[in-house]
Each structure stands twice: as structure tokens, then as C-alpha cells.
């Protein structure tokens, strides 16, 4: 069985036609993992028995004509900050290392309802804070395309898992680019849905006004299939949008069938192309623009004038929210506790020993910008500039259907290449504004850097709830 770049839609046809069973499929993926994950390090843990039992159950349902749907028996790997009942969920942090999820995240529950088999705990930057997976407390994940390079982050395990053919798809989470950037570095597809499109229930909160769960996979149709499954209103998450969800896979199929971008206007935000791009990324973006034109798309220049402030706004708002969200991890009700003399010392010691450097850095920055005397100058001001950044997008979307930008200024970098935290933050420049505005975006493979042989991606951004037009265009482009 060749699982190279396998898609959910192709695998589901084979399951339906009896070419192989779900158990055979899962065993084949496990074989790939056994062969190569000691080198790559995508997974923190895999509960094989659970996975194979779920596969056998799916096979029996299918034999009895009671399959839960087209995708019954297809494995999908899960980032370690998304709860799967009975499995550990550590966020790649020592503090949460012993914790087992008492419940399924809504996204996981919805996938199970369709017969998908959520499995494995994918490595990540601790609490999703990082751009290279180097901040995991447990292991390094390597880029499967060049193991001297990082897979990106924070969903680096998710992206590496797809690039190494360990699963056809994975769930990740995106707070400032944590799905799109690793997808770009590993040459796979990654979607950050509109804020509120996918329930955050069961996603360990980093920055609640920015976090979204989304898919990493091999093509736009698969992204649509997963979004069809996990999108929609959830009474457990009061920020989920009431608007009807679905039709995403159909939109992608339509795009793939037509292969045409006629009638679509693509806006190029000039601030995203004004210097700072590596030659490789600039060249692939030129080729991407030419291809879009060749497929019938129209290109217009637009402006997002407050782009240069996005990183500063993000690192104020995201760290402020993180400092509040991570206040609950105190070693009392769950997680690792350091015994100390008295309650307050237990908080200090448990948090001091449980959190890694980057998490401490962000908690401190977030606490600082919220502290008395600094709140107005930093946090409140950042929220106001966030409004201006959102307005930039609203204005730009009046002039075009989609925005086309790079995902990252350069291809996947090498380990320890970015040792300075500010330098690392600045590498997120093209992805973070979209989390601030709440719109949706997709990272799609667009070319290869000749010098390094590493993939280069393009990002399509769409207005709020514009997932359909985004996936249709992505599918047409990737055809």
C-alpha cells in the first residue's frame, strides 16, 4: 500500500471498494511511523491498541452496511493541546505531563461521529508558544524534507506527520500562524478557519480571542472534508458563530474540477511584498501571481497600512490572554505539583518547575502589559490598534475576493538558527494579522526553493466565513 501524500477522499473510496480495510490502513500508517518517527519525532505518544480497536470496529460496521459515513475508519492525528478522552493531553509541557483528558474536544467528538479515528499526540511548542517546535519540553521534531531544519510551529508535529506520511490529516491549532507556518515549512496544506467557525471546547486555551482549531492535510478537498465535520455552533463555546456551516468539501471539488480562477480578484497587500522576503519566496510569489493570471484570476494591489504594528499588537494581546489563561495551572487540581511549604509556595514552585523558558517569558510579558500603570499604554492601546488592523482587512476585501500573500519570509530555517526571541516573533509577520482580524486563511504549497530544495507556500486569505471561496480557489490553484 503506497500512502505517499494520500488523501482522505482517495482512501475513503478504497475503503468503500474493499481495496483494504481500516485495520490494514491503520497498520500501514503505524508501519511508516515505526520506520521513521524515531528520526522525525512527530509524535509524543501513540495509543496503538485504541487505534486498532477503533479500526476493527469501523471495519465491522462497514461489513454490516452500517458505516458511519464515507470516512468511517480513516485515522487522523491530533495535536497535543486538543483533548481526546482517556488520552494524555500535555501541551508538550512538563506541568501537564500526567494529565489525561476526561472528555473529547468538540472537534474530536464531531470527527468520531463521522467514523474518523483520532489518534496519537503530536508534538508542538509548549502551550503552542513558538514557531519551530523547539519549545517542546519533551522532544525535537525534525522537518521530514530536511532533518537539519525545523518543521515550524507551533503545530510542527502535525505538519511533520503529514509530510512524513504518518497520517492523511491532522488537527492543529492556530493562534498567530501555528497551522499555516508549519504547513508552509513542510509543504502541506493548512487552514486557519474564521474565528468562531470551529469550537474551541477541549482546546487548551493559549489566547482565547485568537485561537482556532484547523486541519493540516494534503489537499484543499481534505481540508474541506475536515472543516465540514468540525465546523459549526457549539453550546460549549459561546464564541462559536451561529451561521450555517458546511459545503466546504463541495466547494473544493468544484474548484478542482474547473481548475479556473476566472471571475476572482486577488489582492496583493503591498506591505507584504515590500522587502524582507528571501529571494526564494519572492521568486515563488512571482510565479504564483503569473499562474493565477494564467488561470483567469485578476490581480489588484491593495494596502493593509497597519501591517507593521501587527507583531507588537499580537505579542501584547496574545501574552496578556495567555497570562490569564495559564494562571489556572497551579499544580493543585491537576498537573504536576512541586511539594513546598504552604500553598502559595506550591504555586511558585509548581509553575517555576513546570513551565519552560518561552512560556515563562510570555506569562511575564502578559502580566506586565496588564499590570497597574501599564494597562492603558500597552493592552488597551493594542486593542485599539487591533481595530485599525481589522478595518484594513475590511477595506481591502471591498476591492478583492481574496488576499494573496507569502506565509513566511523564508523557507524552513535550521535548528538554533533563531535564538533570539524577538527575531523569532518577527518571523510570524505574515500570519498574525489574520488572527487579530479573525478572518480565515489557507497555506498552500506553491513552489520549491532551488537552493535548499525546501517548499515555499502561498497564503490565501478570505473575509469572515469565506472558507468556501477560499477552498475553491485553493483547489483550482493546486490542480
Amino acid at each position, binding site marked *: 500500500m503506497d500512502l505517499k501524500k494520500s488523501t482522505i477522499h482517495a482512501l475513503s473510496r478504497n475503503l468503500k471498494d474493499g481495496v483494504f480495510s481500516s485495520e490494514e490502513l491503520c497498520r500501514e500508517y503505524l508501519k511508516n511511523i515505526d520506520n521513521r518517527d524515531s528520526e522525525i519525532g512527530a509524535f509524543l505518544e501513540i495509543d496503538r491498541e485504541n487505534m486498532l480497536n477503533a479500526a476493527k470496529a469501523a471495519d465491522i460496521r462497514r461489513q454490516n452496511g452500517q458505516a458511519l459515513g464515507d470516512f468511517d475508519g480513516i485515522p487522523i492525528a491530533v495535536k497535543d493541546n486538543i483533548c481526546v478522552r482517556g488520552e494524555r493531553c500535555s501541551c508538550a509541557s512538563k506541568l501537564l505531563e500526567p494529565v489525561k483528558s476526561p472528555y473529547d474536544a468538540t472537534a474530536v467528538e464531531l470527527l468520531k461521529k463521522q467514523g474518523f479515528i483520532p489518534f496519537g499526540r503530536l508534538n508542538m511548542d509548549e502551550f503552542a508558544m513558538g514557531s519551530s517546535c523547539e519549545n517542546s519540553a519533551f522532544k525535537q521534531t525534525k522537518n521530514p524534507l530536511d532533518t537539519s531544519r525545523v518543521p515550524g510551529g507551533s503545530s510542527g508535529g502535525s505538519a511533520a506527520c503529514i509530510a512524513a506520511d504518518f497520517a492523511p490529516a491532522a488537527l492543529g491549532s492556530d493562534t498567530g500562524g501555528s497551522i499555516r507556518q508549519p504547513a508552509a515549512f513542510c509543504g502541506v496544506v493548512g487552514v486557519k478557519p474564521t474565528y468562531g467557525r470551529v469550537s474551541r471546547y477541549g482546546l487548551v486555551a493559549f489566547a482565547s480571542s485568537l485561537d482556532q482549531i484547523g486541519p493540516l492535510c494534503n489537499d484543499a478537498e481534505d481540508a474541506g472534508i475536515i472543516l465540514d465535520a468540525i465546523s459549526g455552533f457549539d453550546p460549549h463555546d459561546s464564541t462559536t458563530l451561529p451561521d450555517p456551516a458546511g459545503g466546504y468539501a463541495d466547494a473544493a471539488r468544484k474548484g478542482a474540477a474547473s481548475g479556473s480562477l476566472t471571475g476572482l480578484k486577488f489582492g496583493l497587500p503591498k506591505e507584504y511584498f515590500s522587502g524582507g522576503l528571501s529571494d526564494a519566496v519572492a521568486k515563488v510569489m512571482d510565479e504564483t501571481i503569473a499562474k493565477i493570471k494564467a488561470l483567469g484570476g485578476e490581480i489588484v494591489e491593495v494596502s493593509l497600512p497597519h501591517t507593521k504594528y501587527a507583531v507588537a*499588537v499580537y505579542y501584547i494581546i496574545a501574552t496578556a490572554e495567555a497570562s490569564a489563561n495559564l494562571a489556572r495551572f497551579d499544580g493543585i487540581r491537576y498537573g504536576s505539583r512541586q511539594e513546598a511549604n504552604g500553598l502559595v509556595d506550591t504555586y511558585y514552585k509548581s509553575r517555576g518547575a513546570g513551565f519552560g523558558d518561552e512560556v515563562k517569558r510570555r506569562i511575564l510579558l502578559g502580566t506586565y502589559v496588564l499590570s497597574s500603570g501599564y494597562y492603558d499604554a*500597552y493592552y488597551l492601546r493594542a486593542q485599539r490598534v487591533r481595530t485599525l488592523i481589522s478595518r484594513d482587512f475590511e477595506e481591502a476585501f471591498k476591492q478583492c475576493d481574496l488576499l494573496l500573500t507569502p506565509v513566511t519570509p523564508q523557507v524552513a530555517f535550521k535548528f538554533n538558527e533563531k535564538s533570539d*526571541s524577538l527575531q523569532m516573533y518577527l518571523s510570524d509577520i505574515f500570519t498574525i494579522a489574520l488572527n487579530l482580524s479573525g478572518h480565515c486563511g489557507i497555506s498552500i504549497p506553491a513552489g520549491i526553493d532551488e537552493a535548499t530544495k525546501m517548499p515555499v507556500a502561498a497564503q490565501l486569505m478570505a473575509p469572515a466565513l469565506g472558507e468556501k471561496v477560499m477552498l475553491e480557489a485553493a483547489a483550482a490553484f493546486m490542480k
Partner: protein
Amino acid sequence: MSSEIDIKYVADLARLDLSAEQAEKLQQELGRVVEYIAELGEVDVTGVEPTAHAAQLTNVWRQDEAKSSFPREVMLANAPGIVHGDLIKVPRVLPSEEE
């Protein structure tokens, strides 16, 4: 605006134990980050409303219905310590009389 962070004070607010070495390193690193984010001071935000949330939903209500929650033993399974069967064990909160 001063970009000097009183790291000890902030770490206390966050209940974070830092070694002297860590505190010094973080002081420097965060000083640079604060210097960078201070550039927001140059943006004119007169009359601009703050955005707390991209979804812009307000007053999301649900019916006030009593529902059963997770069983006690399931939630206690992750506790670092248990006493008296179903209570979470915590360290001493008030100093003992001898102290």
C-alpha cells in the same frame, strides 16, 4: 515610557519561581521586547474603539437548565493528591500554631 521591567515584581504577580540567573536573562530579553512593542505609541488611536474579540458576538445566552456534570471520580483522577476518598489534598494554607 521606561522599558525597564521590574522582573521580580511581575514574577510575583504571576506566582512564578525564577532563579536569579533566569530573572536576569528574562529582564534583558523582555526589555528588548518591551522596547519593540512600545512603538505602538506612535499610532493615532483617537476615537478608535478597542477590539476584544474578532467574533463581535454579545450576550450569548443559554437556557438555565440543571445538567449533570462529570462524575467526581473522573475529575479527581488527575489530582496530584487525594485525601478522605474524594477531596483534593492541598498544602497547608494558614501557618501552623508553632510557626
